[in-house]
């Protein structure tokens, strides 16, 4: 009997911690209602804790002492209560600072953003850009340069007018500078400061920020120019399906017929317009902090459609603090820019070393007639005034 009692006592001893987990209120009795070791351990493990025992403890004005009593002027909230209210963004803050977001003193979401930006974000950048360069190198080594198959004629035809080339080069040069300065900002703290030191990076960061912010306008102007100049030629049609079905002849065989732009170029065009437009919008949001808030409203709309639940996710955060708006804008701006950069790597490859005769289109504005016949047969026939090949071109 005594042994049985001893066993029960032992079991009770082991049961207490789990009992305490289930009943946190009792578990905190020993600490007078404050957090205990269990809370600290769970937080260190990164587990979610219910900290309402602290966040709700922000004073009670209804039981405030009369203002003539000791501490009565505190209005029912002690100093710790006030600090807790500040900590959980529940305090009624007034400030003479009239800038947006001035009343948010502590913002938990910032830690998640900072951790993501300093870790996974950089990995995404390295894998995406590095992976694309690796794939293009492999493609070049396996497939080699795409040559003009037929005999060159020595005659050229106008492919792009001066204004089109101007728009293209304005977009290209601004994008390259924006890409480099953007990567300087992204990799500054983790890579460039350890490599070159704070002083060198300081100069680099100030310069690249100025350049990035101001060249962005040239990018946006160029985006409008190329949209206006080329949208008509980039509307999808049936020739695109045939071109895509044969992968544009990239992996061998003849090049399928194409108009002024083939399906691959149309994909590049719409990627540039859609992703470039999105980058511009999020860039403007970052350029004028707190003035253009894109994400809170979008998240709210997506939640109302039940989209996150379709994918088994929790609702997207809403409402967002002004800082969170900026943080989401920064992440979106970076990720979309990286995706577009990877696409542009492929575009630069095919427009230069990857394909014989392609660079002339943007370099000189004129292309070898045979190149035009092989890569854009329908367009070449139109330009040269030849009757269309009905079997291939319809």
């Amino acid at each position, binding site marked *: 009997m005594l042994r049985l009692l001893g066993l029960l006592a032992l079991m009770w001893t082991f049961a207490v911690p789990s009992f305490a987990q289930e009943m946190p209120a009792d578990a905190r009795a020993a600490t007078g209602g404050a957090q205990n070791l269990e809370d600290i351990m769970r937080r260190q493990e990164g587990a979610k804790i219910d900290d309402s025992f602290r966040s709700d403890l922000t004073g009670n004005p209804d039981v405030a002492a009369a203002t003539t009593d000791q501490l009565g002027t505190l209005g029912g909230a002690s100093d710790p209560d006030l600090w807790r209210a500040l900590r959980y963004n529940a305090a009624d803050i007034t400030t*003479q600072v009239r*800038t947006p977001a001035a009343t948010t003193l502590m913002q938990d979401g910032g830690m998640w953003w900072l951790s993501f930006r300093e870790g996974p974000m950089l990995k995404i950048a390295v894998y995406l850009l590095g992976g694309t360069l690796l794939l293009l190198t492999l493609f070049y080594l396996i497939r080699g340069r795409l040559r003009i198959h037929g005999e060159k004629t020595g005659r050229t035809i106008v492919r792009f007018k001066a204004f089109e080339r101007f728009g293209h*080069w304005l977009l290209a040069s601004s994008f390259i500078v924006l890409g480099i300065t953007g990567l300087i900002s992204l990799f500054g703290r983790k890579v460039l400061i350890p490599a070159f030191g704070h002083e060198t990076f300081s100069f680099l960061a100030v310069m690249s920020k*100025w350049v990035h912010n101001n060249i962005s306008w*040239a990018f946006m102007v*160029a985006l409008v120019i190329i949209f206006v100049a080329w949208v008509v030629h980039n509307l999808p049609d049936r020739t695109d399906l045939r071109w895509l079905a044969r992968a544009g002849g990239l992996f061998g065989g003849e090049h399928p017929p194409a108009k002024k732009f083939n399906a691959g170029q149309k994909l590049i065009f719409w990627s540039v317009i859609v992703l470039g437009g999105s980058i511009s919008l999020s860039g403007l949001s970052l350029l004028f902090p707190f*003035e253009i808030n894109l994400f809170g409203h979008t998240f709210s709309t997506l939640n109302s459609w039940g989209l996150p639940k379709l994918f088994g996710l929790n609702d997207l955060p809403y409402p967002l603090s002004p800082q969170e708006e900026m943080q989401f804008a920064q992440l979106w701006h970076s990720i979309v820019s990286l995706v577009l950069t990877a696409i542009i790597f492929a575009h630069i490859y095919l427009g230069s070393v990857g394909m014989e005769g392609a660079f002339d289109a943007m*370099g000189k504005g004129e292309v070898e007639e045979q190149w035009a016949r092989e890569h854009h047969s329908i367009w070449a026939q139109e330009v040269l005034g030849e009757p269309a090949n009905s079997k291939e071109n319809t």
Partner: protein
Amino acid sequence: MKSFLMALVALIVISISANLILQQIGLSSSNASTSFGNVRISD
């Protein structure tokens, strides 16, 4: 090549102009996140 050089010139002109214009109309990004110099009107 001429178009490329023209684009580079335009790039520089647009960038510098944008900066000057935004500063003139007080829309620089640094103004949006900091207070004006003379916030304190009296002691």
